[in-house]
């Protein structure tokens, strides 16, 4: 141990001992990054009316409460449906946009790129009230179509960035070779390009799913009536009470997120192996 403390840790011959403060600081920071969210999990299994840690008696009554509530179940179905549909719309729309902008090399592509990533830059409250206004005019307020379109728009910048950077490191000449052998452009794209950027496409799809699933502010304005999302109901419940039901829903959301992240990691690893 002492020997390790005195051994050099970097190119400038700083020893591990001199860096000890950094290790402790980083350790605490990483702990603080992860634990606050995870502490909700044991709390959700408490038998008490109040949130306790560690719970004195364990039970799954708050899960029962959640699964037994028609309102929460409907919101959950809405959120999942919106997330899946957003993924199914945003991924192809975003990927062909990224491909088009990458291959076209016209002078306007920079302007188009900036336009397409604006949903990420504009304060989300403005996106929300703007969409609310547009949906009143288009008569799609509180509909699934409206929700999916808005969430798709929010997801497009991510798809564009992830897929776009994959295309940058892809050699387009491979597609040209296929086309010179007689394949039409769409076929060259589907059989040559797409398989090689598939990891970026899958990552884009997962990110689109999560963008929709976690989105609060836009859903607050344009989801409602028969179609409130899970996050919208959670946000409203948070303002009034701190009920362990929210802890159990949070736990389930953490499970969904972790699952998605694990999937992305698996695909990401495949990507780096390539």
């Amino acid at each position: 141990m002492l020997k390790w403390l005195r051994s050099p840790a970097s190119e400038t011959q700083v020893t591990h001992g001199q860096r000890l403060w950094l290790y402790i600081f980083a350790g605490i920071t990483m702990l603080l990054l992860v634990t606050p969210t995870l502490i909700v999990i044991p709390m959700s299994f408490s038998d008490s009316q109040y949130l306790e840690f560690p719970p004195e008696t364990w039970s799954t009554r708050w899960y029962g409460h959640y699964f037994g509530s028609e309102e929460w179940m409907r919101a959950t179905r809405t959120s999942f449906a919106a997330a899946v549909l957003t993924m199914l719309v945003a991924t192809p729309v975003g990927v062909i946009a990224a491909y088009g902008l990458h291959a076209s090399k016209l002078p306007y592509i920079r302007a188009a790129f900036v336009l397409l990533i604006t949903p990420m830059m504009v304060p989300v409250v403005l996106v929300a009230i703007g969409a609310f206004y547009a949906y009143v005019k288009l008569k799609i307020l509180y509909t699934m179509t409206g929700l999916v379109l808005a969430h798709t728009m929010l997801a497009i910048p991510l798809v564009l960035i992830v897929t776009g950077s994959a295309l940058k490191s892809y050699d387009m000449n491979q597609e040209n070779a296929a086309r010179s052998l007689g394949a039409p452009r769409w076929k060259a794209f589907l059989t040559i390009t797409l398989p090689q950027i598939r990891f970026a496409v899958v990552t884009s799809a997962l990110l689109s799913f999560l963008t929709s699933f976690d989105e609060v502010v836009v859903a607050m304005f344009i989801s409602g009536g028969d179609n409130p999302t899970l996050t919208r109901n959670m946000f409203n419940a948070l303002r009034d009470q701190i009920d362990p039901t929210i802890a159990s829903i949070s736990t389930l959301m953490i499970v969904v997120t972790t699952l998605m992240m694990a999937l992305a990691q698996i695909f990401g690893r495949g990507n780096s192996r390539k």
Partner: protein
Amino acid sequence: MTTTDMNAAGLKRDERLERLKLFGLSSPAILLVLVILVIPVGWLFYVSFIGADGSFSLENYERMIKRKSYGRIFLTTFEVSLLTTGLCILIGYPLAYFMSQLPNRIANLCLITVLLPFWTSLLVRTYAWLVLLQKNGLVNKWAISLGLWDEPIKIVHNLNGTLIGMVHIMLPFLVLPTYGAMKAIDRDYLKAAANMGASPARAFWTVFFPLSTPGLFAGALMVFVLCLGFFVTPAVLGGGKVIMVSMKIVSNIELFVNWGAASALGVVLLILTVAVLWLASRFLKLEQMTGGGH
């Protein structure tokens, strides 16, 4: 005109057509952004210049200048955004540095501790802090049992609670680009500095730190811009005491149904955001800001 020239002209025309067709592939995405974002925001811009009586007026903007409460809201927004960004730099830079010094395998494990909260729902994380920081929450309970303070203190529903939650949520946005920039630094530069007699501190500040600043700036900019328009976390953890611009916009619509006032605030918020991004873009490339450069 010879046949070759005509062929060349024809090929050129074909190429241009092909490029236009390819460009057209982005039209569904562009259409979506135009219809749901650009046109409605343009309408908000217009509405902000319409007074209560339905005619053109600047009253929505005058109100912002005249009423002290509005000034305070903008001040709070800047205060919270600056403090959050500052704290994120102070906490995030050392963390990114720590990870950049580790062998890849361990660094990737540490990176998960940054990515896990990054991917977790914002609402869930805000809720977790609400639970932890409340009066009979864990933080108070542990602090009292450790003897840090005697009776439960108010940590949430005020500025402190808001800052704790926001720093936690924003930290990954700063750490990821900073870490990326640090990883790209060639370690031989540091060896060279040490070889020529620079102390470790000097080598760090004159060689390593300047090379890591593009990532740090990109991260800090992202954090600051996101903070300016933040809604969920201050609304839940601020307990009505920390009122930011976005919250005032929402209450103007939900409570007062005053689109003019909400739009004017929105326009100012948007202009502030664009101004910050424009200023930054003079020092940074767009690709760096969006992370596409790595």
